[in-house]
Each structure stands twice: as structure tokens, then as C-alpha cells.
């Protein structure tokens, strides 16, 4: 047998597998569990969007598109970004990607040189760290804290900047904490960046999921920020289109030019059927977003209220579809709490440590589930914590 460790990429081998996999394997082996673990909408893609995909197949539109994506699609993305987030781009500054994940990957690879530092507010989605490393960069985690409502503070950003800092990742609205950044808070971050060459990757995949009257603000819409920012967005969360794998980047031409090369050599073009469906979403999907966000908001309030009623301190999330309660009150590590809740209480939630060591003491609970499902979970959690 060959010694593969000598044959394969050292960098790839050094990447840690996602810590949460073990937990999901345990979950998969059990029955009668009420899971609140899934990070994707429980809604099915609205019918008119699915139908547009089906129609494109019926019409035989099964070819590649141009590398950057259908022209109509990119035009509609520009109109959407302007309509919803006050962002101005032209279609030559858009690349349609295979989900937001590919968009993040090509942005890192287009921007980073070996040894460049990338500031990553944590806890956060698990892909930034490994993708930065594969692009030759060095992730510099900055811990956001509950006392700051899990926001990136100017002080924390300042303390993480070194002469090697190349890029700041802005993962807001945040998975797993549900934190958002307001225009005021972003302005303070922008003030720090303005006189530097630090670029920004703004991952806005949850941009439509904000609550309590707080609209998402893109850092790229602030003065002088557009020129240094890659906006990443997509259709998975806003339109419940996870399986269609549709994302995009919006960035100034010189950045887009480099990213497009990486995209065209690795991917060619994003799936054509999905692009036709996405065009319909952009043209006629605003009311679907409003409906789904209204539903999420009800569940959010129900879940936060329910957890607090059980004596579990819970930061009020204002975005995405997760709550990030403080389970430190039970005096055991997050993983142990979640494992016991799984085996004894038959409820699955994700230990906060899956999103970085700083997630210790917390757990991520998804409310991309029906109210009835969440209700059942809360009843089980109540029973379980009474046994502790």
C-alpha cells in the first residue's frame, strides 16, 4: 500500500475535518430525535421559481452559459442589489458562482498571496479558515463576544491589524450567532479601513434575514468601501434555493477580472437551469422573501422566549436563522451538553465549538423548522434540563 501522506497535498492533509461531522454521525445513527441542527431553509423553493427551471429544461436550454453567467442574470443581480441594499454595480462586476461557497473561495484565491493575514471574526461559518489556508493566507481569528452582542468592535479590529493584514472577512448577519452590524457600527469599521490597503470580503448570504425592523446594510455601500470590497451573496437562504447552488460575487472590475479566471478554469460556468430559476427569483421573488422572513421571525421570537423561560440566557439574534444561547449555566462543556441532550433528551443542537473554540459555552439552534417542531423540541429540552 502506498504511503498517501507522502503523495497528497500537505496543505489539504493539514486541514482539520469539520468538527461537527462526528456529532452529525451520532445523530444519523439515532431515531426519534427532534433535530434543530440544519442550516438551510425548511421551505421548498417557491413554485414559480422551480417552474422557471423546469421550463428552461423543457425548452432545451441545457448548454453552458458565458463564464460569468447569463447576461440577463447579472443584470437582474445588479438591479436587485441596488433595489434591496443600495449597491451600485454593473453586470461586468458580477460573477455567478456555484453557491456562496465558491464565491468565497475565488475571492480568497484572487486576493491572497502567501503569508497574507486574513482577519476572521469568530464564531463563524466553518469554511473561511480552511479556504484561507488553501489560498496561502493565514487566518487571524478575532473573537466576538456575547457582551458586545457578537459584533466586531473597532477596538478588536484595531488590535488584530498588523502590517501583513490583507483582508477582513465580514460574516454578517452571522452564522451561528445571529448577530448583525448596523450602519453606525459598520461606519466605525470603515473609518479604520479607509486609510489602509486592507480589503474586505463581505459574506452577505443572510442579508435578507434580518428582524425587528433592522435592514441589512452592506459595508460596500459606505463611502470609499466599494473599491476594496468583494460582496458575496446568493440564493440559498433568501429564496430557499440551497440545492440549486447559486451564488455570486460583486466587486470592482480589477478584482472581478482575477476571480473570473479562477472561476472559468475550475467551474466553466454555474449550472444553467439554476440560473434560469434564479432570474425568475430576482424578477418576481421579493414577496416570497417577505413571507419567509415573516415566518422565521415568528419562530425566532418563540424560540428565544421559550429558551429564556427555561432559564437559559439567550442573546437576541437579529439576523440569519439561528439562536446562540449561553449553555454555560449548566456547568459542562458544550459538546458534553449537546451529546447528553441528544442521548438523554432526544434533541439535537450543534455545540458552539463547531464554529471555533470561542463557541465554548454556547450552542447553535436553528429555527429553520416549523413552529410545531420547535415547540416539541422546547418541551423535550425542558424535561431534560430538569434532570440535571
Amino acid at each position, binding site marked *: 500500500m502506498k504511503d498517501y501522506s507522502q503523495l497528497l497535498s500537505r496543505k489539504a492533509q493539514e486541514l482539520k475535518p*469539520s468538527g461537527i461531522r462526528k456529532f452529525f454521525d451520532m445523530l444519523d445513527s439515532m431515531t426519534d430525535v427532534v433535530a434543530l441542527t440544519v442550516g438551510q431553509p425548511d421551505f421548498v423553493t417557491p413554485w414559480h421559481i422551480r417552474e422557471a427551471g423546469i421550463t428552461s429544461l423543457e425548452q432545451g436550454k441545457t448548454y453552458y452559459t458565458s463564464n460569468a453567467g447569463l447576461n440577463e442574470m447579472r443584470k437582474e443581480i445588479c438591479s436587485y442589489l441596488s433595489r434591496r441594499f443600495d449597491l451600485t454595480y454593473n453586470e461586468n462586476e458580477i460573477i455567478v458562482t456555484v453557491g456562496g461557497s465558491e464565491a468565497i473561495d475565488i475571492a480568497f484565491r484572487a486576493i491572497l498571496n502567501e503569508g497574507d493575514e486574513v482577519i476572521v471574526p469568530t464564531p463563524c461559518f466553518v469554511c473561511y479558515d480552511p479556504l484561507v489556508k488553501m489560498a496561502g493566507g493565514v487566518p487571524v481569528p478575532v473573537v466576538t463576544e456575547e457582551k458586545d452582542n457578537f459584533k466586531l468592535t473597532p477596538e478588536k479590529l484595531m488590535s488584530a491589524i498588523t502590517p501583513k493584514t490583507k483582508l477582513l472577512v465580514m460574516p454578517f448577519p452571522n452564522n451561528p450567532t445571529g448577530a448583525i452590524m448596523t450602519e453606525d457600527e459598520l461606519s466605525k469599521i470603515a473609518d479604520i479601513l479607509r486609510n489602509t490597503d486592507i480589503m474586505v470580503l463581505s459574506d452577505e448570504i443572510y442579508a435578507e434575514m434580518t428582524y425587528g425592523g433592522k435592514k441589512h446594510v452592506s459595508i460596500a455601500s459606505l463611502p470609499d468601501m466599494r473599491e476594496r470590497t468583494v460582496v458575496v451573496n446568493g440564493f440559498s437562504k433568501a429564496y430557499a434555493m440551497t440545492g440549486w447552488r447559486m451564488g455570486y460575487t460583486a466587486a470592482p472590475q480589477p478584482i472581478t477580472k482575477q476571480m473570473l479566471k479562477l472561476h472559468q478554469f475550475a467551474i466553466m460556468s454555474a449550472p444553467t437551469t439554476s440560473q434560469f430559476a434564479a432570474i425568475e427569483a430576482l424578477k418576481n421573488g421579493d414577496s416570497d422573501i417577505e413571507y419567509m422572513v415573516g415566518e422565521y421571525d*415568528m419562530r425566532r*421570537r*418563540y424560540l428565544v*422566549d421559550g429558551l429564556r423561560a427555561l432559564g437559559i440566557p439567550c442573546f437576541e439574534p437579529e439576523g440569519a436563522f439561528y439562536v446562540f444561547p449561553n449553555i454555560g449555566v449548566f456547568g459542562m462543556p458544550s459538546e458534553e451538553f449537546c451529546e447528553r441532550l441528544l442521548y438523554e433528551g432526544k434533541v439535537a443542537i450543534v455545540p458552539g465549538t463547531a464554529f471555533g473554540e470561542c463557541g465554548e459555552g454556547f450552542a447553535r439552534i436553528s429555527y429553520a423548522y416549523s*413552529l*410545531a417542531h420547535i*415547540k416539541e423540541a422546547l418541551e423535550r429540552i425542558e424535561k431534560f434540563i430538569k434532570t440535571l
Partner: protein
Amino acid sequence: MNEILTLLENDCRLTPEQIAGICKKDVEEVKSTMRQLEKDGVILGYKALIDWDKTDREYVSAVIELKIAPQRDRGFDRFAERLINYPEVQSVHLMSGGFDIMLIIEGKTMKEVAYFVAYKLAPLESVVSTATHFVLKKYKDKGVIYKSDHKDERENIL
């Protein structure tokens, strides 16, 4: 108020405490709103939605189209008010289009429904004609999909 109604329409077992949590309202306020809505006849009942096909209960339902002769001064109201008294009658709707009244009837057997139409409905004075359509299978009712094996197919991914 509409938020409370929407919540109850989806799940009438939600308690006032839970509704208060969702709507960020005071529990007492929710309770008194619900009482008022019941009193005003906005909330008419709290019923379960049951797929009887999954039980051993003998059961059949039919949609009946009725053409009737309206009565002086009362239009269709008097006739409709008479129909609602039959326990077999589940719904009564006044319709636009090719017929006047649509009934949904439930009975134990087709024979029972046929008997109702032939011996109770058709002889009524104002009835001009009837057309009975038996329901073969329900796929969706009151916004709920009748599916035997509904399960969450989303997979955990990270």
C-alpha cells in the same frame, strides 16, 4: 390581532403564553384579545384536521352543485339557512357561475350520501337541479398537504 389569528389558524394548540412570546405581547393582553375574538365570532372554533382515510372509519364525502330558484325578498339566504341544519352538510357556499350553491357532504357510505341527495335535498321546493361529485382522494385541504410519508429530507451538512 391578525398575527394572533394567523398563529392560531396554523396551530390552535398554541397557549396564550406561547403566543405572547412570539408576538412580544403581554400574556393577559393576548388572553383578552382571544376572548374578544371568540365573542365577536371571529374565532369560531378550535378543531383538529384529521385524515380519516388513515383510520378504519367508514367515510365518504361529496361536493354537490345545486341550482335553486331564489325566493322573493330573501334571495338565497333562506334556503342556505335551511341547509345548514342538516348534520350531513359540512359546508355551504353561495357561488358565482354555472350553479348557485355548493355543498360539501359527509356520510358513512355512498349509499347514505345518495339517499340524502335523493330523499332530502332534491325534493326541497326551491331545488331546480343537483349534481353530485364524490371525492376520490384528498391531496390538500385547508392549506395542509395530505401525505403519508412526510419526512424532513434535509441532510446535515457543514
